């Protein structure tokens, strides 16, 4: 009953064409088909943000999106932020501020932070809290995460 669908999209700047089962989530597709395992699986119901990716430049929970919905769209995962072997400034700031302990939430945090800084280069504490409301850190590195983002503000 579930024939595969063909989807065309770009992932981290590369054009791709793949076949996907209609009920596969984008999260599963990214990890198991594209083998980009920087995107993490946590709750699978939209509550933790470990699975955050940019879809047409907007942060979304990839566990709440179907792979089929990727057709014609642009996907950026944590692996797509570094350019020419050099980490993005948000990634660097997270390292400089030790903005993690176990690191499981970090890819999702950085994706949300990057999107925030792009739409608002100088966010207040409140803006940061609102933009990262969908990213949980069970290690409680919130203060360091906030500092890392502030260090990237203009």
């Amino acid at each position, binding site marked *: *009953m579930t024939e595969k669908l063909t989807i065309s999209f770009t992932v981290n700047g590369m054009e791709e064409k793949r076949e996907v089962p209609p*009920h596969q989530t984008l999260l*599963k597709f990214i990890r198991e088909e594209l083998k980009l395992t920087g995107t993490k699986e946590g709750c699978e119901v939209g509550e933790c*943000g470990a699975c*955050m990716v940019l879809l047409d430049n907007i942060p*979304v929970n990839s566990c*709440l999106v*179907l792979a*089929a919905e990727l057709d014609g769209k642009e996907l950026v995962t944590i692996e797509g932020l570094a350019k020419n072997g050099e980490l993005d400034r948000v990634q660097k700031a997270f390292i400089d501020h030790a903005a993690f302990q176990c690191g499981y939430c970090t890819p999702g945090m950085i994706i949300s932070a990057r999107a925030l800084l792009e739409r608002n280069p100088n966010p207040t504490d409140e803006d940061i809290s609102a933009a990262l409301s*969908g990213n949980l850190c069970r290690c409680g590195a919130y203060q360091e995460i906030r500092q890392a983002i502030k260090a990237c503000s203009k």
Partner: protein
Amino acid sequence: MPAFTYQKCSDLSQAMKWLAEDKDTFLLAGGTDLLVGIRGGKFKARQVADIKDIEELKILKEDQKGITIGAGVTLNEIAQFEPVQKNVPILAEGCNSIGTYSVRNRATLVGNICNASPAADTAAPLYCLGAIVKIAGPGGERQVGIEDFFTGPGQSALKAGELVTAILIPKPYPQGKGVYKKASRTRSVDLATVGVAVQRWGQEVRIALGAVAPTPVRASSVEKAINEENVTDAAQAASLVEKDISPISDLRGSREYRYHISKVLVRRGLEETEEVCS
């Protein structure tokens, strides 16, 4: 995730065709209720029809009739739409109280009401604003008032084969302040234990509550006391809300707690909007 087929719809007639062909077809907008529900076994979907990229459902505009919000428009887009912020900020507040920023990048207003949870956070603001639900189906187009749209927990006035195309926030807009107050177990991600919208309309007030009855409800007794019987004491008026609600106990709160917190939130809502009414 249980298996289903996926249909991308490029126009409304396609969506209606899939609905007509298979009654186990579910419409997919943001998917934030649907996909969670399919995974959890609440929805048994054989087919999912994706309507979110249908051009005519992306409409978000203001004209002489009011503000029209298409079924493909996300909560974040609505909360950032200037005519909403300026004329009906209570709706922006309701939208912003849902889930998280990233959920609101996908979730739609129409999905929120079609899911028909008594706790839907946009419902109480929409009740206060007299929103109109635009519906398309095999029998043509029709519209119903938001208060007739919710018919029970998870149940709406939609008939087989019908879908919601848009919500209209009609003019005239309220003159006066409005607030949406939500009590939940945590300050971040949680459904409402009780949600209360209080909207001043000049000298009058409209009040609606979520999560305290099988559908969202207007607080008619409180409204009557203030609008018709000149009750000016907020606490006295708010205490009448117990006549308007019939809450149950569940994991978010007991029936008694809901009675209590409803009164508290109605009173606070009245106090916070008060200065504008006098």
